[in-house]
């Protein structure tokens, strides 16, 4: 039975990913910043681990607790959005640093920390959650400076990671959930169940040849 680790699994897309992979028979390791408040997650019966996705010490602690556990798929889902309405002059140093630390370094730090777990598994997949807002060629409406910067950089980082790790047998891929009705989007968009069902289908059928792709919940490649 394959095992998946999902960061940021206490709500929204992460919670639904934990629910659907668990229902499909996967071993699920769900991380959250505050396990004490994760009642819905606990009810799923999945393994819950504490993780602050932007904190190197927290990531190291998680890796130590998971030492020797094969993990087929690491899915760096945790992410943040800050001032989405800021214009260029309003983007602060502090905001940019905070968003980059969580959305850009966080996934890389997690993938690196759990690389041995992934190599010890059968499927060997490291994934990060991207977004249509990451797409440079599709960007003709602007806005969301810090979030877009972090996700465009994440795409490039994961593409570069694929360049380095595919030879070791690790598939480094990006997911796009689509515009999902969650707290982050003001509950506009498609149902989270539909987005996650699509992404789960993508994950279930991934192979090494997919390394370096950015794949939508609908199975389609997202333009860089």
């Amino acid at each position: 039975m394959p095992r998946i680790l999902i960061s940021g699994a206490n709500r929204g897309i992460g919670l639904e990913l934990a629910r659907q992979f668990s229902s499909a028979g996967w071993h699920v390791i769900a991380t959250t910043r505050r396990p004490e408040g994760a009642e819905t997650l606990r009810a799923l019966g999945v393994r819950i681990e504490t993780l602050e996705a932007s904190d190197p010490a927290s990531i190291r602690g998680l890796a130590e607790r998971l030492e020797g556990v094969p993990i087929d798929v690491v899915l760096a889902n945790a992410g943040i959005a800050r001032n989405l309405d800021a214009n260029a002059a309003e983007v602060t140093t502090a905001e940019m640093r905070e968003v980059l630390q969580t959305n850009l370094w966080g996934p890389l730090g997690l993938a690196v920390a759990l690389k041995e777990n992934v190599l010890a598994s059968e499927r060997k997949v490291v994934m990060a959650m991207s977004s249509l807002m990451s797409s440079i060629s599709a960007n003709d409406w602007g806005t969301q400076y810090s979030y877009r910067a972090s996700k465009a950089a994440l795409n490039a980082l994961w593409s570069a990671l694929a360049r380095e790790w595919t030879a070791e047998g690790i598939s480094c891929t990006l997911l796009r959930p689509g515009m999902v009705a969650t707290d982050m989007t003001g509950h506009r968009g498609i149902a989270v169940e539909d987005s996650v069902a699509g992404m789960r289908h993508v994950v279930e059928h991934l192979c090494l040849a997919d390394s370096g792709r950015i794949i939508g919940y609908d199975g389609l490649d997202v333009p860089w």
Partner: protein
Amino acid sequence: MPTVLITGVDKAPGQAFAEGFRAAGWRVLGTGADPVHAGALLPYDPAQENAAAELVAQLGDIALDAVIFADDSTAGNALRPEEIGPNVLIDVMMVNTYAPLDLAARLIPNLKVANHPAVVAISGNAGMTGTSVAPLSLPLKASKAALRQMWRNLAVEWADWGCRCLVIASEDEARAEALIAALAAPSSAPCLEI
């Protein structure tokens, strides 16, 4: 005589841009830290948080027809993914992505008083996600892709006052000429990759 501000003229590629623009008859204002040209260059270190504000104060109300952001960081280019800590990655992002965005936004008054102004970002091949095949250089690739994304944003936000947001995506030696030609054609697209 049109005026261009170029950051990082004490090293490549800023140096080549400065020479190219001077040869084409532009007034060139350069930033850098080359002690040989002490006094000729404006001080600006994109890694320092107050550097942009100080540079803008020094420029005053001078009209800038173009600003070229050529001062970037290649720190961490030789590191394997396993060796990249948050400090090097975020620091390179702040220098290569945030600093140009921040300085460009602070220069809006200088750009608005010029005719057909332009801000020019240097991506090189590194920022061309999906096509770049060079090894390693993870911080550079991430920061330059994000820089291209920021320039797309600026092109949308600043379209109403006609600022063009250009990206140099090639590594070839003739790019100063190509850029000067693009700047001489005010009707070029608001967000153009050269």
